[in-house]
């Protein structure tokens, strides 16, 4: 549907990430490196999943349980990956603190740690958007468009861009929540990210039914908004606690 539409779909999926990147992440080169590494890690997890599931695809049956198994395994792998990333992140923070001590600069602030988590989450989100949406957009730059039968009211590219936007939000901010939870030992936050991820994946299963995307996509956005709100609350609480601690110490 012409270059303009193609660019439009791209910006729909990645616009907020782009502005977040320019405003926050591109200012600190370390965050850009974190973003690139977490994108790579997500890609590797995706390749591992596709290696396992390649033999079984495409599914011949129209029932939903093979798809749900696929979603389940994928989400499980990626959440295990998040735990692994937390360990790596902790090690990285220790190294940065040791380095800061050596060059007599202050240690990492709490905002710095949250920014690293944000960059990591955004890497996951951008990887999702790129591989599930943008890389399939090549036909969209041409003269025609494509519709899926299950969701025949709007073009396929638009649907996938909208879903990608929701997932980018979920991935980006649930990483901040998860890292906060791990560092504080807060069980609720620790379980928040896997639960939300699984719920989002399960909601996309609704799209398998004919006309299901009318129900599935709004539910997906509900999860995205829940993630955003919870992340905002967590960060606000953490920062005010920190500030009151600092004023108490002085």
């Amino acid at each position, binding site marked *: 549907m012409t270059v303009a539409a193609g660019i439009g779909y791209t910006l729909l999926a990645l616009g907020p990430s782009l502005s977040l990147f320019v405003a926050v992440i591109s200012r*600190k*080169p*370390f*965050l*850009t*490196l974190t973003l*690139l590494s977490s994108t*790579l890690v997500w*890609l590797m997890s*995706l*390749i591992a999943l*596709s*290696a396992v*599931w*390649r033999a079984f*695809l*495409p*599914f011949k049956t129209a029932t939903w349980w093979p*798809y749900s198994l*696929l*979603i389940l395994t*994928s*989400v499980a792998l*990626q959440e295990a990956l998040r735990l692994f990333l937390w360990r790596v992140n902790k090690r990285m923070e220790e*190294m*940065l603190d*040791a*380095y*800061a001590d*050596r*060059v007599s*600069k*202050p*240690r*990492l*602030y709490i905002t710095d740690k949250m*920014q*690293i988590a944000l960059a990591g989450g955004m890497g996951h989100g951008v990887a*999702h958007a790129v*591989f*599930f*949406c943008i*890389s*399939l*957009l*090549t036909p969209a730059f041409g003269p025609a468009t494509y519709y*899926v039968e*299950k*969701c025949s009211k709007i073009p*396929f590219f638009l649907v996938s861009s909208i*879903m*990608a936007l929701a*997932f980018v939000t979920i991935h980006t901010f649930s990483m901040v929540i998860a890292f906060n939870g791990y560092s504080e030992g807060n069980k609720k936050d620790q379980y928040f990210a896997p639960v939300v*991820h699984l719920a989002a*994946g399960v909601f*996309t*299963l609704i*799209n*398998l039914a004919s006309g299901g995307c009318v129900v*599935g996509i709004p539910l997906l956005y509900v999860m995205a908004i829940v993630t955003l709100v919870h992340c905002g609350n967590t960060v606000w609480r953490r920062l005010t606690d920190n500030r009151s601690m600092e004023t108490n110490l002085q």
Partner: protein
Amino acid sequence: MEQNPRPRTVLETCGEEIIRIVTPVSICMLLVVILVSVLNRGSSLDDGLSFATMATMAYSESSSDSIWDKLKGALLNSLVFVAVVTVATFLMVLLFYFKCTKFLKYYMGFSSLLVLGFMGGEIAIFLIKASSFPVDCFTFAVALYNFTVVGVMAVFLSRMAIFVTQAYLVVIGVLVAYWFTLLPEWTTWGLLVAMSLYDLAAVLLPGGPLRLLVELAMDRDEDIPALVYEARPVISDAGLGDGVVRRRVWREGRGDFDEDQRLRSDLVPGSSLRTYIYGESESERNIVDAEDGRALGGDSELAAPLMQHINIRMNSLENAVSSENLALEGIGLGSSGAIKLGLGDFIFYSVLVGRAAMYDFMTVYACYLAVIAGLGITLLLLAFYRKALPALPFSVLLGVLFYLLTRLLLESFVVQCSINLLMF
């Protein structure tokens, strides 16, 4: 509202050196991908070039051959290419040994003239044809002439504004990489793998030409005249509280290091270690005559060894320095000096990504991430081993691996999931 701004942490500047080299590599790859997708749309992808070039001397691939034939042909082509490159590198070592650096510099200028003038002109003509841009040949000739002359001066002289030099080096990399993508498919992949293996051998084996070159340059404490991309050095004054980053234009010769020593002597006491990563020596194919579309008889090769310097300043008081801390030292606040990356690395990374673009964009993204990961790994290994390391193998081999995995496994998985609007 805070009364006094908090002092900056290490997060502000850590990793800036790497980003300064990742950005031009990414720009080069992006430009090649754009060129490939704009210009190679209509043409058939299997036939490649219809005229003979050095890279297809042994075997011209055609789409009707069987897979086994293509494999053998690609292998043969790559072996011939690597042999030519080896001979050219040894020739360069010989010339450098006999102190013919003037000749090498002039040769570099001449080859960049050829690349910018002829290859650049040809690609500009393709673009004009593809976009039906109205321009007459006199304007085009004048513009091309000016562009080429400024480019040659940027490469040749060291007094040019650093941004202009960097931009022209990236443009040269883009042009050469685009021409490499016109080769037949199997030959290109074979060439990439063969060049990365050659790079590994040439730098690490005791008799390797690049290792000899490095040792010669180190003994004489000279810079090798070659097409290298230099990033701006980052200097941040660790003594000041506000962490102001000052930039310094790289000056040629040893005066630079002395000034560095004086500048750093009060900030970070310790010895300075000079470590090198080397790219590989690269030979170009024959220049194509624009009118006839057939190769010129002349054998104009560009032998330009490509290297990467990293100056790592170590605190000699710190004995038990772990490998990761070395990496931080090298790329973080404590280091100064520019990172230089050879142009051949730019070119072969971009050829890989450009070839991936000829299949689909998903492979482009996967290969881009793989190449950047390989570059990062190479830099980390450099900080760990502190000796000359080749820059090609990790990136190219990871890139080829990711290309195959994406093409065979990932694509169908993702398409299947997306078609059913299933995402996670």
